[in-house]
């Protein structure tokens, strides 16, 4: 479902991502972990079309994000690490806007909006301006907007930012449920225990390169689990 083929990216002569090749299968939850500045966010931004790779190709489904960006983006959901939204819209208006730009028909959109507002626990605040939302509520709204068009692939950068324990539990359930329905999930995180719990495979990235990819079974065999492995690879 997601194929990264030898992608590289530099900023002002600094190599942020170096020759990453990776395949994420349909319905798989793939996690990417690594120290700050390792290249996680740059990789995700290239997959969303926000950045263009200097070299290599990215395929989402059967579409190349550079050559067919509109088709690729229409099957993609994205949750960024910083939640900048339209502050002067209400949550409902924001979801209507997103539904419109994805071309969802009105009746379907309205029922999906209600469904998403309920699912992410923001129905009570649907008519409040986003500017008054807490970080956790923004994160919930971001997820609702990323899923409103029923994407085939979901890219998430730090999924649990600002969420309370109820929110974390709910979101873990949503991610597992999406995966079971065939949605491919690619997430970047610093929360090792969550990556260990959710991901089928975890990739370790450092200085722009994938150093190692381990399955959940392989991780469980290591003493100290993912944290132990992280420290071991990091050292």
């Amino acid at each position, binding site marked *: 479902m997601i194929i990264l083929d030898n992608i590289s990216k530099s900023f002002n002569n600094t190599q942020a991502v170096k020759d990453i090749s990776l395949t994420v299968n349909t319905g798989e939850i793939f996690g990417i972990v690594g120290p700050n500045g390792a290249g996680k966010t740059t990789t995700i931004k290239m997959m969303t079309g926000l950045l263009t790779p200097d070299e290599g190709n990215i395929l989402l489904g059967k579409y190349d994000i550079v050559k067919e960006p*509109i088709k690729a983006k229409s099957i993609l959901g994205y949750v960024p690490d910083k939640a900048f939204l339209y502050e002067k819209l209400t949550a409902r208006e924001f979801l209507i806007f997103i539904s419109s730009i994805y071309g969802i028909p009105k009746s379907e959109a309205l029922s999906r909006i209600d469904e998403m507002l309920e699912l992410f626990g923001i129905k009570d605040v649907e008519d409040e301006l986003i500017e008054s939302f807490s970080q956790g509520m923004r994160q919930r709204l971001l997820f609702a907007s990323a899923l409103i068009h029923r994407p085939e692939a979901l890219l998430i950068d730090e999924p649990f930012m600002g969420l309370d324990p109820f929110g974390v539990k709910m979101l873990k359930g949503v991610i597992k449920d999406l995966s079971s329905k065939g949605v491919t999930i690619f997430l970047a995180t610093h929360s090792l225990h969550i990556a260990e719990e959710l991901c089928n495979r975890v990739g370790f990235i450092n200085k722009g390169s994938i150093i190692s990819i381990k399955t959940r079974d392989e991780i469980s065999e290591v003493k100290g689990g993912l944290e132990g492995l992280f420290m071991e690879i990091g050292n």
Partner: protein
Amino acid sequence: MQDAGYKIKSRIVHHVSCIVYLETMILILIKPKILSVKNSISTKVVLRRLPFIAIGLGFWFLFYIGTLKVLSYVREIIFFGEILSRKLFSMTFFSLFGFLILSSIITAISSFYLSKDTQLLLSKPVKIRDILRLKAFDAFTNSSWMVLSFMPPVFIAYGVSYGAGAGYYLMIFGCFFLFSLITAGIGIAITHILTRLFPAKRTRNVFLGIGVVLFLLLYFLIKGLIPQDISTPEGLINSIMSFKTESPILPSYWITEAVFPILKESSFNIFYPIILLGSALFFIFLSEIAGLWFYRKNIERIQPSGERVERGFFRRYYPEINTALFYKDIKTFFRDAGQWSQVIIIGALIMIYVYNFKSIPVNALSGFSFIREIMVLVNLVLSGLVLSAVSARFIYASVSLEGQAFWIIRTSPIVIRKFLWSKFLYGFIPVTTLMLVLVFLTNLAMNAGGILMYISLGTVLMLCVSVSGLGTGFGAIYPKFKYENIASVSMSLGGMAFMLIAFSVVIATLSLETWIFYVYFLKEVTGTSEKLQIATSIIGIVLINAGAFYFPMRIGEKKLREETGII
């Protein structure tokens, strides 16, 4: 005895360390601002901004030449020349006094109460007094930089016209700095008091409203006081002299009194510079006292609350993919005080504009040939100026309005061309409606109907299309997604450059139209040479306007498709 000595010594150490603390703390707080400016300047940035700097310098030069010409004309008027020159000087500072106070209030609200670093600063072990000083520095620089950068040509023109020495330049720049500090102090003090009375987000609206009403009242009052006849030198002198700007309690009077003696090299009076210095210190101190009284409580009152928004008339409306952006922009516009409040100011300026044209005695001037046509042309030039200014506010800034939420557009299946067209329509529709109404009303006021009316409306419509395209494209080429206040986008270097280029398009178009008019009416169209001139001019008009629309839109689209700094 030894104990008393120790106490005195420790007290002195305490006072000295307090002073050192205050000085170092304010420097520490200001340092990030200075470093931000320093880090944003590089050879690459300077080279990229070189065209804008050149345009700015060109404008500066024209402003200088214009002021010098006006001064030479005024000073040549027998007997009254010097009095008028002095009067113009004090009138300039009289207007600046009001303008700078209003500008200080608007920027002080942003700096003190809406700025993003306020929460961070309040959570740190920094005294409120230091935060107030930092914010005062911010408000002062933001409110006065534009005026400070536009005034030097006027000062230099006065200096050159009078052949003044270096002492004059030192005096005028020093006094103007103190003058700006006075207005900043007054503005900041009023801001704290107003925010105590209204929540910050509403204060800006309240004050903008008050400011505009005062401005209009003042204008109509002055308009009523002065004679309408300015066609003769006597009429002009009477008009200018009837402005009551020289009250000894106003800083505009003090600066005139401080500068004029040295300008004419007659004498040097230290009294008024000292008055300016004393007042500047007093008002800055007053603003700090007001801040110490109100700031902390005001900050607590402006935290965002979960206020529900009524779904209103359009609750059942669901926009299609092509109208979703437009609908979102309209909704945001009416909810964002920073955006819609600008309409009030523009509305006031337009009222004054129409009122002025109504006051022109066109019929009385009917003895001059083509006076109506000339007045229609002047009206079109002025309308072009209004169009450039309004477009900078509403069209140039429209792409930047997406702010840091622009990632939503970049990751959505939206074609950037559609996005730009939506932004174009968002600005084009209201601006064109406004301009057509404006030109229609002013032409009616001058009894310019028939073919003149059709030509003017057609020209304005064409200019609206090209300037809107130019504005949308320029806004996409130089987007500023990280801003504190949307008004700052149109005041950026890109915004200023757009305004000047847009006005150049207006002038080029109208010059060619005038040439066609001249060839058609004043020279008889007899040979192929005249026909060729007319045809070339028409082609020139079409090419200029089509180019102004097409190229910026294309380049802007390409730029937005590429990576932008905010993502």
